[in-house]
């Protein structure tokens, strides 16, 4: 007897198995995203943009019109689509490097403009696809290929607080949250609210998801979960940061 996992309707079976590493957090985030899209009934008008990096592996994951972009340029491409065709639901999917380093100026300006796009940013605290270089979100003392002696916060600053920055500069009507793959139900709630925010045309929506990368962390299952459940929340607070008009969760 085989048990088939329940996948959201928007899951494309022809492109499975996907290429994400075993233990990767992306499939968890993407499943939550897929379920949100299915439950909101927006499969027909949702479009996905993915960045360079591990997020790139999502380009043929869904039965959704998707485009792989240049590094850090997913946000402006989705903004371009949305401005041309406002009835479409645009989702920009990227990692912490694409979002907070090379893509940061676009993120900042899109947030300031309160563009009606949804950004989902997967944070695994390093540049994974290229072999594990330091990222803006890398933790203090963390060893990466470009911080081989450990991240020196005196020289390179502290882990980037993305949602906090976005919440501070965006306008009323925007939705900003940080979820985690350690609580996928909550993450899915945040993603759904983010998409609903775009559907209602209220403003910009942004969800960061604390995620896993055992491959580059070189951690076994237990240590991987400890990282995302205990270590990362010390630097990245999970919860909603900005909710249009309503009370915040977390």
């Amino acid at each position, binding site marked *: 007897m085989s048990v088939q996992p329940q996948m959201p309707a928007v899951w494309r079976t022809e492109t499975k198995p996907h290429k994400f590493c075993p233990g990767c957090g992306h499939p968890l985030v993407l499943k939550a995203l897929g379920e949100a899209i299915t439950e909101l009934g927006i499969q027909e008008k949702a479009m996905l943009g993915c960045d360079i990096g591990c997020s790139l592996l999502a380009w043929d994951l869904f039965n959704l019109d998707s485009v792989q972009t240049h590094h850090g340029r997913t946000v402006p491409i989705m903004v371009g689509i949305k401005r041309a065709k406002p009835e479409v639901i645009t989702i920009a999917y990227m990692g912490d490097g694409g979002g907070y380093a090379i893509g*940061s100026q676009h993120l900042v300006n899109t947030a300031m403009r309160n563009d009606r796009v949804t950004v989902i940013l997967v944070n695994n605290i390093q540049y994974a696809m290229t072999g594990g270089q330091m990222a803006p979100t890398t933790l203090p003392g963390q060893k990466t*290929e470009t911080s081989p*002696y450990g991240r020196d916060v005196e020289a390179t600053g502290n882990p980037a607080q993305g949602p906090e920055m976005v919440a501070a500069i965006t306008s009323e009507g925007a939705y900003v949250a940080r979820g985690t793959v350690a609580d996928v139900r909550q993450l899915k709630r945040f993603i759904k609210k983010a998409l609903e925010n775009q559907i209602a045309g209220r403003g910009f929506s942004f969800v960061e998801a604390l995620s896993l990368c055992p491959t580059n962390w070189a951690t076994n299952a237990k240590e991987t979960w400890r990282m995302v459940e205990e270590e990362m929340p010390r630097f990245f607070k999970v919860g909603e940061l900005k909710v249009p008009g309503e009370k915040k969760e977390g």
Partner: protein
Amino acid sequence: MTDKPIQGEQRVFMTGNEAVAWAALAAGAQIMYGYPITPQNEIMHYWTRLAPMYGRKFLQTEDEISAGFTTIGGVLAGVKAFTGSAGPGNTLMQEPMSMAEMMRLPTVMVVTQRGGPSTATVIYSQQEVTMTCYGGNGEGFRIVYSTSGQQDLFDYTIKAFNTAWKYRFPTFVLGDGYQAKMREPFVIYDPELRGIEMVKAEPYMGNPGTPGIDRDPAHLRNTYNMEDELLEAVRQIGAAYEKISPEVVEYEQFETGDAKVLLVAHGIVSRAAQGAVKVLRQQGYQVGHFRPITLRPFPGVELKAAADKARHVLLIESSYGQFKKLVTDGIYGCTTPILSYLKPGEGITVEEIVAEAKKLF
């Protein structure tokens, strides 16, 4: 901590990326600014590991635009600074490199060409020739060395710093992903022990003394008001560039004296062309090879002289004609027919070149 990174000479076994990192150390580079992009990441990986041992510095910037401008900053401060990139990263570098061109700043940039356009492949190509030589909104007042392997990467990275600081033009070492990853034995050395004149860096800003009191302030700009101001400025840069070109230009010739077919190629494809000349000569074919080493300034006069003598020119590159444009521009007036073997993004073997050359006999 400030020991020389290379004592004397050593025969080593390394990849091209590592050769660049060691050469930069040997050349006295004080700081590298960079951003991750395949296939040049090991330049950063090695620099970050070795730099602290020799008192050098590193900054991983937020992107390549920043890497280029921070490199400019390092140079303005009077320090030997360098960066590296490839593909889409090189595209972003064109904005800062245009500024370096206008202001004649001695930036050093290593390019490990990968497939193009756009993201393409992370592996190899010769498709960044146009961009590296003439990118941005400039006139190509740049010095570009096209290397053909590890020893070249080591030699020309050191040379790039000296060339840049001596002649004050943005200088590029144009390699590719194969060279970056290939492993070969070659020799690393302390350049001073080989009698290489190591040019000193000097600050553009922050010289001793109070500006306006002890010395004139440095007022640097890259903008002009009217057309005639710009015309004058660009003509001056052009004149300076043309004046130093004969000293800077480099090329190699292999059995071109009596060649009926002249193979023209650069970079790693030149290695295959050199191999092809050996094979063909052994089989009795009169084939020669002209290898431009500097793509900017281009050895057009010398290449035309070689091409004039041949019956055919066979031009070979891993691009759709980027090198060809430099060649046809450089040898304008030459009536020898040019045939091209163009393989964008893919390596070219000795066998392929031999087969193509034989067709011309």
